[in-house]
């Protein structure tokens, strides 16, 4: 059975997605990256789960064809909308109302061109059908679709806010929004890169599997909050604890024995790569290749002048600031922090002065994994709008760029570097970098900086080379 019939991916841009114009800029790139990888596995994988009886349409060879799709997005469907099917002459043939999952489906007995349009009256207040691209536009804002017998087609029907205005933002407004988005991204990157930097500082290891801990955070939260129905805040705390435990176990079972064996740092780095590879495919194996939402609920948005963010974003930023402040406080003001910095500087000397280096390293692994997990939940909540097996992988290089930019192994350098990378990534779009190039810009800045100041912004010159 052609699964395309059961799962028309149409409303890629959800209502929620279009509502915040700034967030739209953020996700434009992400959507681009995900499109290719997302659509195919989605079609293959989730066909079964979305098969509801009401919208089921089975094309029969030489007899019937299907026109089916979803209004809204799969995770944010619009129910109760009348979808009208018109033939090539523009006469209404059939009208169906979308179910709770936003799906609609028509069975046609003749191949040819048809037009699909939403009934404006039936749309929820404040929503309108988005005019389709010129290539598929039919009369009266309808979507043209060519049906064939024996197969299913999915017209692209998208909805958006009525007050949505594509070109309405002035340049300065866009910049202001991007700066705030950049700070948000930077803070979340900082959460993850702090741990990366601490691990590098205390053990000298460039941990290429750190991003998989970020993904793990999102995955655990998805399991606890979305699947098991735990309260979101409790879920965030639980996720952090689970991830910290994973970090503890990783050091206990893997890294400490390897340090004892005297395995070289290069070899350990390759071990992290193998681990990352195995983890990514394990996520795919167990969770599937599609984007999973941590929460389905909408928390609303708040605007300050030209800047609009979801309420969840403000909370995520606050949580990130508190967590980063806590790490900073521990590092600077407590004995454990002092010991950590001592191990960072010179492990042998630290051991000689009575510091239990293994214990400090284990603590660093635990804290780093916990922070990465926390970053993963928040990232899934406010930036990537869900979690997927490669969510972490996509920001791994940004993390490394941030850590290197700030100076390898310096915790505060990682913070400064993350904020800079976050701002660069978000500002690259409005300042003219197309699509995915905003990530490339961040990496290019890293390479240029290495030419000028190889030790990073806060690093000391003698650490390098």
């Amino acid at each position, binding site marked *: 059975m052609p699964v395309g019939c059961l799962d028309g991916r149409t409303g890629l841009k959800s209502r929620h997605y279009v509502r915040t114009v700034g967030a739209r800029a953020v996700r434009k790139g992400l959507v681009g990256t995900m499109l290719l990888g997302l659509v195919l596995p989605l079609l293959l994988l989730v066909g079964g789960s979305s098969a509801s009886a009401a919208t089921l349409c089975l094309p029969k060879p030489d007899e019937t064809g299907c026109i089916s799709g979803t209004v809204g997005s799969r995770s944010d469907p619009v129910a109760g909308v009348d979808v009208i099917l018109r033939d090539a002459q523009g006469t209404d043939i059939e009208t169906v109302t979308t179910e709770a999952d936003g799906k609609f489906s028509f069975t046609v007995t003749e191949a040819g061109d048809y037009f699909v349009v939403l009934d404006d009256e039936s749309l929820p207040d404040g929503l309108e059908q988005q005019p389709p691209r010129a290539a598929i536009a039919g009369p009266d804002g309808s979507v043209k679709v060519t049906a064939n017998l024996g197969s299913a087609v999915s017209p692209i029907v998208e909805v958006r806010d009525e007050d949505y205005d594509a070109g309405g933002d002035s340049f300065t407004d866009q910049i202001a929004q991007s700066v705030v988005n950049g700070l948000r991204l930077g803070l979340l990157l900082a959460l993850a890169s702090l741990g990366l930097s601490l691990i590098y500082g205390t053990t000298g290891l460039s941990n290429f599997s750190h991003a998989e801990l970020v993904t793990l955070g999102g995955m655990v939260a998805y399991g606890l909050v979305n699947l098991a129905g735990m309260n979101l805040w409790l879920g965030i705390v639980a996720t952090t604890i689970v991830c910290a435990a994973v970090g503890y176990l990783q050091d206990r079972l893997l890294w400490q024995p390897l340090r004892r064996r005297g395995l070289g740092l290069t070899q350990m780095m390759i071990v992290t*790569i193998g681990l990352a590879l195995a983890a990514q495919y394990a996520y795919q194996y167990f969770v599937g290749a599609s984007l999973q939402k941590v929460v389905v609920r909408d928390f609303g948005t708040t605007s300050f002048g030209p800047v609009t963010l979801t309420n969840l974003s403000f909370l995520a930023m606050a949580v990130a600031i508190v967590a980063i402040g806590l790490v900073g406080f521990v590092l600077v003001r407590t004995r454990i922090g002092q010991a950590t910095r001592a191990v960072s500087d010179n492990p042998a000397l630290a051991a000689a002065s009575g510091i239990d280096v293994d214990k400090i390293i284990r603590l660093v692994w635990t804290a780093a994994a916990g922070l990465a997990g926390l970053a993963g939940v928040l990232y899934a909540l406010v930036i990537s709008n869900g979690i997927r097996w490669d969510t972490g992988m996509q920001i791994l290089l940004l993390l490394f760029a941030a850590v290197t930019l700030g100076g390898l192994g310096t915790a505060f350098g990682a913070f400064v570097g993350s904020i800079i990378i976050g701002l660069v990534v978000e500002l690259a779009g409005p300042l003219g970098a197309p699509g995915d190039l905003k990530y490339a810009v961040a990496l290019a800045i890293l390479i240029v900086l290495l030419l000028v100041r190889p030790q990073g912004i806060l690093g000391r010159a003698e650490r390098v080379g």
Partner: protein
Amino acid sequence: MDTILDILSAVIREAISPGTAAVAIAVIGLNLHFGYTGLLNFGQSGFMLLGAYGFAISLVHDVPLPLAVLVGLGLAFVFALVLGIPTLQLRGDYLAIVTISAAEIIRFVGRLSNLKDLTGGAQGIQGRTYQPAFVDLSFFGDGAWTLAPFNYTDVADGAGWVRALGGLVFAACIVATVLVGRRLKRAADPTRTAPRTGLDGTLGKVAAVVLVLIGLYALFFAMPVTYGRSGVNGWWVRAVAWTLVALSTLVVYLLVRSPWGRLLRGVREDEDAMRSLGRNVFAVKMQSLVIGGLFGALGGMVYVLASTVQPDALGRQITFFSYTALLLGGAATILGPVLGTVLFFSARILIRESARAYVPDSIMSAQQTEQFSFIVVGVALVLLVIFRPQGILGNKRELRFNV
């Protein structure tokens, strides 16, 4: 029985596919970087992608084939220079981070929709737009051809025991080669005091080569493979790809046993000592980066000969697979990269097909067998580095690389 034969057939097809040969060439280049010079190049996929783009885009614009190859190599040359200048004077992990970032930048740029006319954006460049220039060069003629031409179907009407016999001969040859190889290795040990015997010298090397050839013939005798002589995915592409693998291996063999090769190892073992001997370490590293990168570009071109230029197909994963293959075969060995690559790709197909055939769908779907094979790859890489860092052919004492 048929299932097993189907699985083995799929494994052999993968082992001799142009894609495997292409990655083998890239791994040969990586071996020069990582194995011999100790450079942590994590951007080999970037070199491959640049080579592929340069080659394919030139051909699409009707540039003659030799010139197109040169364009691909030239791009990789420039890329190596750009990468090397800021990072080769820094510690190794900087090179790792910068090379992996640079390779990603190339991939992002290749995917850009603004460059769709040139690179085809995320969809890439269709094979049929550039492959004819290469396929038309084939002098293999038309029709299909089977390797080996004289195979089990010609003996006793292709009875089962003939096939099994071929398989046994293959297995026996592998075992014998391993035994001879061990002897040769022991004989080459300078600390050895025992007298040399007949198989320790040239005779042993000849015996090993003959055994490998007999083994390969026995393999294809028992499991013949049929493809078109020419065409986009036929013997012509395979012959060219594997000839290039052989040539690359030969070039690296000649390079590393030259005085320049000793310079490379010197830089790997102790940079400061090399510097104090008056050597220009930066220049040596740069030369290594450039030459290894050119192999990467060549690998990229071979990779797209039988497929399409797709930026995401030549992403970070390919670099990581290359490292796994290199460590599997043995870094800093001549034949290690080729052996490692062939084994790596064969083993992955073997795992996937076996899981597909023998694990019920309710436990593991077809999609999951693919992912399962990659999980095994990741875990294998971890175990390999921990328990046998020198790989199959490597020498543990030569590999105390640390950057």
